[in-house]
Every structure is written in structure tokens, then in C-alpha cells.
């Protein structure tokens, strides 16, 4: 697989990640990422050579850790909102989220 990554690709990825990168940043990342990708792409050859290998997502083999379904203390509304850039009537106040293209 080619790890060529164009400046447009970087802009697309930044958009997916919701970061409005500047022109300079797009230039720099476009220049840096291919070398990093070339290095990490080595994993494909390693896996091909190793044959059938199970993927490991996590070092601890635990799943579905549940607690009792009982009410217990949590943050108060004031605590939960204490770091909010803006709030109103015990709610997070956000810019418009409807009417976008």
C-alpha cells in the first residue's frame, strides 16, 4: 500500500477531526506524515510474514464490567457546568447546531 498523502488528504483528515488547520500547518503535516507513515507501514509486512494472528485490542482480558444498578452520588449541576465556556439554566450553552449544510 502506498502511504503517499497529499496536502488535500491532510486537509480532509483535519476536517474529519474538526481541526481548522492553517495553510502553514497543512504544508508542514503534508511534509511530515509520509515519513512517519512509511515507518509504521512496516507492520503490514510483519503481519503478512507471521501468518494467522489474532488482533489484540487491549492488554487485560476483561469484558462487560458492570456495577449494581443503584442510584449513587454524582456531580451536581453546578459542578458539571463549572468548566463550561457558557451555560444557561443549568445547561451547556452552545452555538447553533441546526441549519448547517
Amino acid at each position, binding site marked *: 500500500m502506498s502511504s503517499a498523502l497529499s496536502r488535500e488528504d491532510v486537509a480532509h483528515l483535519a476536517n*474529519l477531526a474538526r481541526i481548522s488547520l492553517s495553510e502553514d500547518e497543512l504544508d508542514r503535516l503534508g511534509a511530515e506524515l509520509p515519513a512517519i507513515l512509511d515507518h509504521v*507501514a512496516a507492520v*503490514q509486512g510483519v503481519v503478512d510474514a507471521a501468518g494467522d494472528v489474532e488482533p489484540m*485490542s487491549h492488554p*487485560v482480558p*476483561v469484558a462487560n464490567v458492570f456495577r449494581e444498578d443503584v442510584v449513587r452520588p454524582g456531580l451536581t449541576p453546578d459542578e458539571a457546568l463549572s468548566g*463550561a465556556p457558557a451555560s444557561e439554566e443549568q445547561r451547556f450553552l452552545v452555538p447553533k447546531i441546526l441549519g448547517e449544510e
Partner: protein
Amino acid sequence: MSDLIRLTASEIADRLATGDVTSVEVTQAHLDRIEAVDDQVHAFLHVGRDSALATAADVDARRAAGEQLPTLAGVPVAVKDLINTTDQPTTAGSRILEGWRPPYDATVVARLRAAGLPILGKTNLDEFAMGSSNEHSAYGPTRNPWDTDRIPGGSSGGSAAAVAAHEAPLALGTDTGGSIRQPGAMTGIVGVKPTYGGVSRYGVVAMASSLDQVGPMGRSVLDAALLHEVVAGHDPMDSTSIDAPVPAVVEAARRGDVQGLRVGVVRELGGEGFQPGVRAAFDRAVELLAQAGAEVVEVSCPSFEHGIAAYYLVMPSEVSSNLARFDAMRYGLRVAPEGLTDPSAEQVMAASRDAGFGDEVKRRIVLGTYALSSGYYDAYYGSAQKVRTLVARDFAAAFEQVDVLVSPTAPTTAWRLGEKSDDPLAMYLEDVCTIPANLAGVPGLNLPVGLADDTGLPVGVQFLAPAQADDRLYNAAAALERLVDAPQLSADALEGAR
């Protein structure tokens, strides 16, 4: 300068227990030291003078009243600034969390408070723990106390420098790919990455959740073990926390007996690319272990060579997902995009994330977004997960032959600020020895073994053990600790520069 700052944590604990000194005196001595030298070291982003002294006074009063207190009660500690503290800011070294006050304490902080450790302050780090040099802090780099033109390692470089410079006897760090052990090596202190799941991550700003682990840092193996015991153990608030007894690390640190211990030297973590002074110090350390009765053999872990490649796919992928929470809506920085009169939430989010995140964070988010994107997922993230299995298999096979593994902790001693800043890949390659433990979830420890012949800077040896056998690390390291000249920064090293 007070002699109290020269003491190890266990020595302080002994003197507190006998009433020889008070916690207020000890805490004040460290606050004075911070005041005197931290403008050169920049280990701290915030100093919690009043709350530390209040805790110290409370401990002193309880001790005076005859109350039985935990071993480390009254011994001050520094905390890496991505671990939540309600009474001090928690910035993760990022502009996006500048001045943020968490509404709850991390479990490890709650345990420090319950055990009566005054929290001196919050230590500097690479932004969101992403880096090996502390140069990626949004608040300026920490400097290595041994040579302030050099990096202290990272990302827990502030915690390491604080301990090395005698600004704190103990510190907490976090280790995702070596971020406790590598700065430990660079600054000549002990640092431990416990078994994954051994210490709660609740209230710790997440970088890569399948790799992150909180751990202790100190100037002796016993000190690290004492702090390990305070913070470790099951936490129902962290679903990856292991529900099993904490390994007997303090007992192991006091034992320090390698007679008959099978020690494996990892063939792939050494040789070409390793600084001669590091190799020489490592070889001497291995020889000392053999002389002390350890059975030293060479073992091969061929997949370790591919650890960096796998790590720099798994970690950025998890980063891109974890850092999506910084959305400028619920907490953290919110910036209005320029030139828009009525911006949407998404536009505000994108502008805020551009303004709030530094270069390395953006680099990793974009890399991770790519590795997880449709069409590339199997080739990159999927393959990296399989390499992770290969690394874990190598560990399993090695631990059938030996009790612990050893390697240098890092291929070089501390480099100069700026030396690797323009080459992210060169910086990533510094993590070659430490990454395999994170990928497999096994514990690792850095022990300082002296100064390199060629650079005169601290060198560290890394011990690795099977998951849940953290005690083996402390036992082996305590034995070697007695045989080497631990590098101690001279009392006037930083004062003389003023």
C-alpha cells in the same frame, strides 16, 4: 538549603514517625527548594503551597494526637498535571485546558489525600503526555537538572526533574510508551510503570486508553514501592482496573535478593544505535547482577523491533478518538472563528481545537484519523493490533525462560533542547526500549545505574516482568541499587548557577 530535601521518602517517613521532624517542616523545605530552583528547572506548572501546608499541619496534629497514620503520611508528593485535582488547576500541558479546575479528584489523588501526602503542586509535561522531551508543553519546556540545556525526557519530565532536583521526594507520572521510565533514565531517578490495570486511571486525562498507566517516581526503589502501594489496587470507577491483590512491592523492595533469579538480557534492545556510554553502563550493571548470584542469559524477542511501528498506529488512533472530547462545549477553551458573524458549533469546535492544540497533538490526531479511516483501517490499525499480539507472545515465551528481562531504558542519555524538535520520527525512535511493555501491558521499572562515561549524564536500566508480577521488578532493582553508585545531583548544583 535545608538537609530535609536530601532525604528519601522512606527516611522522611521514619523521621516523621519518631517525631524528629514535622510534616510542616518537611513540606516547607520542599516549597522553599521549589522557590529557589524552579525558575531554572520549570518542573512545576502550579505550586499548591497553601493546600500542601494545610495537609501537612493536619497530619502533624493527628500524629501528635496519637493517631496511627499510613507510612507516607506527611511526606510531600508532586503530581503530573494531567491527573485531576479539585484544588489545583489541571491543564494536561495544553492551552485547551488552561486554568481548568476539575470537578472531581482522580482516584489516585483521593488515595494520596487519604494517606496524608501533602500535594506540592502539578508538574509539567508534554501536551497531553505526547512526547519524549517535555518540549511539547504549551507552557514551555522543563529542563534537566543535570544540565539545564538538556531535556529531562518525557512526557513525565516535570515529575522526574522535580524529584531529581530535590524539589519533591516523590512524584506521580503516567506512562503510555515510556513516559515514566524514560524521563527517569534521563534524570537519574527510579520510575515504575505498573502492570496495566494495576493503578486506577479514573480522573486521569486519557491519551491512549489501552496503553496509559499511572506510576510512582522517587529517588530509591523503596520510595517508589511505598508510593506504588498507596495508589495501586482495584477501583470500581475504572473498568480496566484489575480486581486482584496488589503485588507485594514494598516487601520486594526491602528484600532485594537476586540469588538464583533468572535474568534475561533482551538481544534486540541494544547494540547498534545505542550510545556507547549507555551500552557500557548497561553491561556493567548486568555483570553486577551476575556477580550477585543472578543467572544471566540472553533472550530473543524479535517482535520488539516492530514495537514502535505498532505503537505509532495504536496510540494515535486512540488519541484521535480520546481527544474528540475537547469540543469547546462542555469545558476547556472556546474560540470564535475569525470572519464569521454567526458561527456554527462545528466551526467553533474546529477553530477552538486549532487554537488549543499544539503541533504534536495535531500531528497525532491527524495520523490516528488516517489510520482509522475507511479503507485503511485493516492495513494500519488492524495490522498494528496483530503486531501487539506478537509482542505479547514474545514476552510470554521469554518469561517461560527467565523471571525478569533487562535492557537499557533508552538508547541515549539526555539530548539538548531543540536537537530533535524538527524530526518527529527521530524523537519517536527514542522509545524503542520502553514501548513493548505498554503494548503487552506488562510492568517496567527504570533504575539509575550511574553516569555515562561519554556524556557524564545519567543512564538507566529497565527491568520488565510478567503482568501482575510487579514485585519482581522491585526485588531485582533493589538488589542492583545496592551495587551501583546511584547518581545524586550535588546539593548546590542548581543553587550555584544562580
